[in-house]
């Protein structure tokens, strides 16, 4: 029986892979996979275009029209991904400690994120990109006005496993478009 602590950030990728590999009795393969994963993540980070101002990204948890509207804070686990992608987590930055907080629509407008990170199913549940940018609060942010939305598959976003580099690459790509080297 192996219980792995919930991942909080990119730094957990290596230890998590090793913990699983050790438990399976293949520590050498674990080391190899750790190195490969970390190298790949580093490669993605290298390719991020240099910018003067870091984009501020709000991680929103959306579910349908029934007013579930939560913003990710420090505990959401996305902060480290966003930082690796050269962005700032708008929720954590505004001092939210919990994983998710129900915020008022206006508070989001005030936070004025440049982009919004959502999970794919959440985005579908509000009617896709067109539905999202119409939600009160989102419509008033630079992200909503410019339709700058990053969506990642629900199960993949926060798993911090060997495929984290793909998640990171996808975020970087959606965030900066074709500027990526």
């Amino acid at each position: 029986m192996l219980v792995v602590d919930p991942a909080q950030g990119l730094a957990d990728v290596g230890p998590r892979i090793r913990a699983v590999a050790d438990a399976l009795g293949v520590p050498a393969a674990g080391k190899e996979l750790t190195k490969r994963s970390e190298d790949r993540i580093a490669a993605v980070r290298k390719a991020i275009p240099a910018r003067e101002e870091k984009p501020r990204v709000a991680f929103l948890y959306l579910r349908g029209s029934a007013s579930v509207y939560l913003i990710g804070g420090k505990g959401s686990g996305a902060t480290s991904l966003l930082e690796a992608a050269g962005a700032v987590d708008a929720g954590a930055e505004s001092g939210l400690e919990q994983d998710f907080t129900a915020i008022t629509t206006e508070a989001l407008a005030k936070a004025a994120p440049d982009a919004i990170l959502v999970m794919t199913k959440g985005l579908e549940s509000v009617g896709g990109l067109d539905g999202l940018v119409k939600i009160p609060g989102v419509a008033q942010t630079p992200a909503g006005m410019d339709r700058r939305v990053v969506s990642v598959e629900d199960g993949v976003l926060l798993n911090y496993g060997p495929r984290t580099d793909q998640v990171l690459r996808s975020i970087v790509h959606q965030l900066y478009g074709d500027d990526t080297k």
Partner: protein
Amino acid sequence: MRRKYGTAWLLTAGLVLALLVLVPVAAGLGAYPVPVGDVLSSVQHRLGLGGGALGRVPESVLWNVRFPRIVLALLVGASLGCAGALMQGVFGNPLAEPGVIGVSSGAAVGAVAVIALGLDFLGTWTVSAVAFVSGLATVLLVYAMSRSGGRTEVVTLILTGIAVNAFAGALIGLFLFFADTAAVNQITFWQLGSLSQATWPKVLAVLPCAVVGLTLAPLYAGRLDLLALGERPARHLGVDVERLRVVLVLVIALLTAAAVSLSGIISFVGLVVPHLLRMAAGPGHRFLIPASALLGALVLLGADLTARTVAAPAELPLGVLTALIGSPFFFWLLRRARRGQGGWA
């Protein structure tokens, strides 16, 4: 009697005045600060009376986030308050509130079913539309089941309502049991009640129901006063009690279902608002019905203002807040009124 009439006028004027003050204040306060002066200036601008438009973002926050929310709070509050006053009048029972005849729980079953089963045949409107229909249908069901021999007894109606409420609670529990985690989250939030997703289309959706209900309700004030004498005396005085009940139950259902379907469950307003007014200015329905609508609007606007500002940037659930603050206040008032009148039988 003289004194009571004076109190009624004074209270009505006070309520209107309080609303006139609270609306601009609520429009100015929020996580995104817009000074009251700017609010007035922007309103003037839109009305073509001078003033000036604000920047793109504050203008949009004001007109697309805050105003729809304020208007929705006023409509929902007025609907709930008015429905509560009607309900207590129709059933001559101080415990009556729209929830008793199954509007809220019926609407909740509809909403919960939609969320748990992941239905979206009407897009983002599905939850509200189904909640409205199932709320109305539940009331009609309760009403039909409690009729016998062309008459409806109040006791039967209320007991039927209680049974249907219990059944609805069981259905909700069943849906919760089968729903996945995300749906459970969504259901929980819906049940806590909120106006945070207010938009102009939602205001327009609740507007016709609220207008019809709030216009019809005062027309029945006189007959409700007669009904307060008792069913038999009222009948002898020419009131068609059975018809009065049918019409008013429909009005109550319309008002409450429209409100609940858009805001989720907001407890307390419908029960307590009419009680407060009755304690202050007597039980005459000519005053009680319109004043309950006014006070309901005022209470909900104030509660929503608190919900979205007191813990900013976080938002408190509105339904929780109304009950949390309202219940102790009501208790205090109850004790006071009871002492003043030397106890009730």
